[in-house]
């Protein structure tokens, strides 16, 4: 439940809100740091109409789970949550949600940023964009 691959559109804000209500003890984690990545309608100067997100079932979930567990342990978090879309997405669709819950704001903010960097560099996902001129694979992530 702390790591999820979603095949359909999801509302990251409602997901965080429900997760906090259902899984966190009120009054313990004073700091919530959340990053949400959303599909843009442009990339490298081109208009993008749609995108297919591919993953490696089994390996991707395990990578995300290890990443989440390491962040919780390293930063002594109360909890952390990672959700990632796969399948066909359109501009404005949310792709990734990373949330870190801690008693302290620095731990939450550091963990949120680190999880995003680890996800971007190691989680097995691949993007194929649909442009007006055809399709293309995104070859690498921006460094930041």
């Amino acid at each position, binding site marked *: 439940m702390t790591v999820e691959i979603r095949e359909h559109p999801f509302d990251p804000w409602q997901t965080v809100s429900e997760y906090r209500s259902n899984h966190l003890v009120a009054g313990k984690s004073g700091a919530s740091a959340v990053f949400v990545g959303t599909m843009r309608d442009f990339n490298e100067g081109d208009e993008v109409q749609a995108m297919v997100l591919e993953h*490696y079932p089994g*390996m991707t979930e395990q990578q995300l789970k290890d990443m989440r567990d390491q962040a919780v342990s390293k930063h002594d978090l109360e909890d952390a949550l990672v959700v*990632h879309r796969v399948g066909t997405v359109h501009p404005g669709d949310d*792709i990734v949600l990373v949330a870190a819950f801690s008693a302290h704001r620095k731990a939450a903010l550091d963990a949120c940023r680190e999880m995003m960097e680890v996800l971007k560099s190691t989680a097995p*996902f691949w993007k194929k964009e649909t442009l007006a001129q055809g399709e293309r*694979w995104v070859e690498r992530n921006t460094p930041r």
Partner: protein
Amino acid sequence: MTINVRFFASLRERIGQATMTLDADGITTARDVWKAVSGESPDEEMLVAINKEYAGLDRAVADGDEVAFFPPVTGG
């Protein structure tokens, strides 16, 4: 030795299939697997996973292993 080989993203399209079963002798490492299935030397940037964990090209493979090849990841 039987190896279950998987390809993802642009490599899957280049190879033309997502999975392949390799039955061959003389295969010791993931690099050998790649050469056997593609006939090419591996691209420097290609990533490898053995049994769903990242591995180097020179990691040994064993009978029944799942060996996956894929390009740099682009999630998030």
